[in-house]
């Protein structure tokens, strides 16, 4: 059997909150990611969708070891990350890169974009002509080679995001974590960047973990989709099964909440209106975490936590009463 490029097993990430309330010091724990497992094959795109507080960004940062994980294992190309020496980790980091949401904050305003793109090459001590490499990277992402001498403020949002992508590509990574890479862009610009991701994957064959709250963009770009709610994956599977036959009530509600840009279909379809907001991850509900907003919840949902189970349409979902 083929080994997946990235394998995440039982990932848990807790953040400690220290709050001084009066005299007593209280320690509270935010369970940002609780027991998440998935894998990404070579050349594949896994979309992670969820609302704010679902833990999708934390998962991305844990993969890159930008955060210390609380428990679980993350393996990349068969090697378990964590517990590796500094040098070993440095070698692996070459193959894993990230593109952030905000193209304004993720570039150093005092560095030319050329030196920003070349920085990973310098850090990793890559030999060769960096200028040529930067020029070819800029062309790869649809910018001109002479843009290397300019500063970030001279670019529009979409162009800056392309610079961020060029920087992520500098070390020929096998995996790129894309953390809301198009959410800050206007729709007419967004389409170009989404196309670029597709083109680059076809040409260079890397894998993506595409984290987004925009379900229509994920539908366009992903092969497989994981839906997260309050630190857990509630449903994961092929894009087709998730979007066409969602089995978890949350997935159904999420899909029905996204407005479709077509007045006729949008107004005629039935909609599931969820009550309330996402509960606090400091004190998540017992049993199924979605039960407080679920219209199907019974006592069983409060007492026992549903496990991910394979459904007839192929995906896994964690619900006692699947659709």
């Amino acid at each position, binding site marked *: 059997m083929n080994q997946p490029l990235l394998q995440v097993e039982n990932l848990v990430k807790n953040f400690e909150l220290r709050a001084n309330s009066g005299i007593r010091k209280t320690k509270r724990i935010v369970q940002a990611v609780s027991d998440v497992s998935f894998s990404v094959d070579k050349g594949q795109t896994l979309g992670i969708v969820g*609302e*704010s507080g679902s833990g999708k960004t934390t998962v991305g940062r844990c993969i890159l070891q930008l955060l210390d994980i609380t428990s679980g294992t993350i393996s990349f190309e068969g090697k378990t990350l964590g517990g590796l020496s500094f040098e070993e980790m440095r070698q692996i980091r070459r193959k894993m890169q990230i593109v952030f949401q905000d193209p304004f904050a993720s570039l150093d305003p005092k560095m030319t974009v050329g030196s920003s793109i070349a920085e990973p090459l310098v850090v990793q001590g890559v030999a060769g002509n960096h200028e040529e490499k930067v020029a070819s990277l800029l062309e790869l992402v649809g910018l001109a080679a002479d843009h290397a001498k300019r500063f970030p403020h001279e670019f*529009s949002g*979409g*162009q800056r995001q392309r610079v961020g992508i060029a920087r992520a590509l500098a070390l020929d990574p096998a995996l790129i974590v894309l953390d809301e890479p198009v959410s800050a862009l*206007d*729709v*007419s*610009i*967004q*389409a*170009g960047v*989404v*196309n670029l991701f*597709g083109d680059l994957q076809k040409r260079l064959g890397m894998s993506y973990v595409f984290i987004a*709250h925009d*379900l*229509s*963009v994920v*539908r*366009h770009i992903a092969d497989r989709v994981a839906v997260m709610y309050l630190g857990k994956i509630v449903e994961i599977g092929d894009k087709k099964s998730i979007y066409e036959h969602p089995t978890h009530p949350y997935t159904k*509600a*999420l899909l029905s*909440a*996204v*407005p*479709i*840009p*077509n*007045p*006729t279909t*949008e*107004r005629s379809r039935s*909609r599931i*209106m*969820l009550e309330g*907001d*996402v509960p606090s991850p400091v004190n998540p509900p017992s049993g199924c975490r979605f039960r407080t907003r679920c219209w199907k919840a019974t006592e069983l949902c409060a007492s026992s936590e549903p496990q991910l189970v394979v459904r007839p349409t192929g995906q896994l979902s964690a619900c006692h009463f699947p659709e």
Partner: protein
Amino acid sequence: MSELVLSIRDLRVTFDTPLGPLEAVRGVDLDVHAGEMMGVVGESGSGKSVTFLAAMGLLPHQAKVSGSVMLNGQEMLGASNKVLRNMRGGLMSMIFQDPLSALNPVHRVGDQIVEMLKAHQQKMSDKDAAKRAVELLDIVGIPQASERAHQYPHEFSGGMRQRVVIAIAIANNPKVLIADEPTTALDVTVQAQILEVIERVQKSFGTAVVLITHDLGVIARVADRVNVMYAGCNVEKGGVESLFDHPSHPYTRGLLASLPHEGVERLTPITGFPPNMLMPPPGCGFAPRCSHVTDACLASLPSLRTFSDLETACIRAEELVVKAGLS
């Protein structure tokens, strides 16, 4: 058609910047009728927010505003502070993207609604105002409204805060409610709830709503009529169904085509990027990104004209429809 409540004519807004004058709004015409839901859509920098900030008289003094803003038959541009104070929150109110910064963190939400009520209805007693505040919280769907009225904004979630902001905005039964990206900061499931509240207010109180957004999906869901803005101008206007079904302006068409659709392998972006309004392009603002541009497009800034059941600012609309029909 029902009564005209807000009528904006040839609105122009120019900001003086160290780099020279910046024309944010360049001659916008816009009508809002009683009880309708009007969508205003455009990308960042298209002038959609500035248009309505100008109408509310909320722009700083440095902004040069000209044209006409008639609200309920009264001219608002250049009106006295007293008139404007009565208008804001009385005849017309506005809600914004970020509900946390719209609320005062050190006052109970109930008191903030009372403040709005008493600013316009001086004779109202404290007791009546407090009662009305709870009623309003109930209208916008806040559970246990009488207890929640005594809480502070930080005790509310993002969606609940936006409901409080809506309660404040509709406290004095305004004729027009301007909602500037009211759901952009919220999650989709909460967005659906807030849109439902806004629609409920519009339908049950007959309040006209101007919904400013960049999200065409939101427009498709709730708007009756749509105004598309680009580079400080209206480029297209019309009923929501006609506009989505047969858009006449290349920008609107490009915007719709750039959205991911089911079964589309490759998206179609609009090439280039929005113009720098310090140096607006000659003629049509969209010309530098338009694939159908001719010399005539660069000659002068086109204004809106009727074209089938829409209004369009594209001088080549007829030819382009024929072209699209043939291809």
